[in-house]
């Protein structure tokens, strides 16, 4: 039922097999299988309510925070099933970071926002190491030069785009292997969006990145792989260039040409 385009074989960082998600009686995702690699950015596109964010949230088990959500099928991270009963969800989330739709810095200083993750995971032995992690993360998030003189200001006092980059720095600081981004630019203006997209390009290769977006242009700009979802199913998956220039499914074509909401 899913059309897979010709792809070079890659080592899968995340491998999902027949994943279905239910919220109570309602099915949100229907038997989706997909491989995610580190070498490229993967974009999930599709109309709202299609299940793309739901799939994203199965990768770090954030669905656990929703009371009546139930996941079927398998999701493997480096070959290990992350829904295994003895798997430690805290460790999983340290390896699979997430950036949310709305920037959600903690109401603490910029420094503390970034240092929060390393602190709880004990990644730094002393203050010097912690300082180094904070600086490196902020640099990678492209925020260092803008905030280095006011690290003790509140994170909520930054502009929207800066807040989102702060959240990315916060995710990077834990040194994850995968970064999940759930419509990270939907609350930002075009200039801030461009800055984040640039940042995604810089981070590519270092982390496996999955981005959920409602903007075709953004998917085309930042990703190398694209999956199109509709009504809880993955309709088509392949190289971004193939999906946008030569979609094989009628529904995909309709959607990317704007004939479908």
């Amino acid at each position, binding site marked *: 039922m899913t059309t897979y385009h010709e792809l070079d074989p890659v080592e899968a960082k995340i491998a999902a097999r027949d994943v279905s998600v239910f919220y109570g009686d309602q099915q949100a995702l229907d038997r989706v299988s997909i491989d995610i690699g580190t070498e490229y950015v993967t974009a999930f596109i599709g109309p709202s309510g299609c299940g793309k964010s739901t799939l994203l949230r199965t990768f770090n088990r954030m669905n656990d925070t929703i009371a009546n959500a139930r996941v079927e099928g398998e999701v493997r991270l480096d070959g290990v099933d992350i829904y295994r009963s003895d798997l430690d969800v805290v460790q999983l989330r340290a390896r699979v970071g997430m950036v949310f739709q709305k920037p959600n810095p903690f109401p603490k200083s910029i420094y503390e926002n970034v240092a929060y993750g390393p602190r709880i*995971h004990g990644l730094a032995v002393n203050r010097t190491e912690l300082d180094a992690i904070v600086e490196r993360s902020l640099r990678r998030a492209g925020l260092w030069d803008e905030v280095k003189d006011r690290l003790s200001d509140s994170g909520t006092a930054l502009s929207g785009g800066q807040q989102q980059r702060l959240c990315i720095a916060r995710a990077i600081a834990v040194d994850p292997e995968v970064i999940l981004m759930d419509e990270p630019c939907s609350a930002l203006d075009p200039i801030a969006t461009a800055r984040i997209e640039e940042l995604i390009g810089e981070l590519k290769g270092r982390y496996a990145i999955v981005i959920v977006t409602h903007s075709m242009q953004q998917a085309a700009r930042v990703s190398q792989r694209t999956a199109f979802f509709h009504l809880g199913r993955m309709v088509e998956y392949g190289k971004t260039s193939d999906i946008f220039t030569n979609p094989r499914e009628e529904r995909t074509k309709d959607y990317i040409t704007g004939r479908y909401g």
Partner: protein
Amino acid sequence: MTERASTDAGAADGDRAARRLKARYAAERRFRALGLAAIACSVAALLFLLVTMIGNGMSGFRRTELRVPVDFARAGLRVEPARLGAIDALPALRQAGLSQVLGQAAAASLGPDGAAELDPDAWREVARAIIADPGLLQRRVVLSLPASDNLAAAQRGDGQRRLRPLATRLAAQGKLVRAWDPGFLTRADSTHAQSVGIWGALKGSLLTMAVTMALAFPIGVLAAVYLEEYAPRNRWTDLIEVSISNLAAVPSIIFGLLGLALFVGLFPSWRSAPLIGGMTLALMTMPVIVISARAAIGAVPPSARDAALAIGASRIQVVFHHVLPLAMPGIMTGTIIGMARALGETAPLLMIGMRAFVATPPAGLTAPASVLPVQIFLWSDEIDRGFVERTSATIIVLLLFLLAMNGLAIHLRNRFEKRL
């Protein structure tokens, strides 16, 4: 640190991480246990309170009674039937020697020492029975009369030592029994635990609540309508809102001081009357009703208003025909909760003098009265075991009333939430 610390970390590093994770999970478990313990403590406090009250109070619905056969036909109690219907029937029966007749009958049946332990107010109960049924005077009946507090204590095994043999003897003869006391719910205050009742206080509470409701409900709802639907945004409206939210948090005793200075000052002859008590509690309840009524009115969807306005209804008509009926269950919920709080309130009523010993149920809104919580407070000073039981029994009655009111409020709230 290398680029990817976790992948090429040494074995020692992994060990450290594992230990750290274990410690983090231990903290998580401790915290959870602490939370559960806090809930357990709170619930245990409630259960302990309830169990104490029920344990003490259930026996408060019983009393110790002496079974005394009386032959009124031969006792020669002469009272004109017309006087039994008059307002002073009680004194008339007393003058006719009812007390002495009972004393003689008790002495004949229980012996002189037993007769001495009849409750001094026992004749009142018999007199009320005679007034209710004058035919009694022609019959021979076995009366259940309250024993004195001392004999009741002796029957429990404490109190005065000298009375214990008497209690044992009478109990063995079946003349001294512990029996259900339905009269507890129909009598008024008395000086003896054996002959007290709560009807006086209950009636006072009901009258007071009626006054509170009659004042606080209309004023509260009208004020809420004004603030939510019509009030312009200006300094006056702000002032009204600030004073309402502050009044809702002012200690109740302050309302008592106001009631004392204002109402008792204006109407000194109605001191300790339900009218004044109700007025004082109305001031206290009104802000609660305003706040909940505003929430309920605000929850009515704008579509209901727009629809009515669109067909040419005036703003008053919109509110009174459409908005208020929809908001009414929510308003009632808040009102009942406010009334329940007023029903349990004691301190402001002490201030306005509702702490007098009132041995007859109040005749009206302006007659001196007591209320249930004040009755509890007054009896709590008595150390006699009998009063402890009676106090706890009164608490049970009060809590049942509050439970019923809160249950009703929750029921209404559920219905309200379903409809909107």
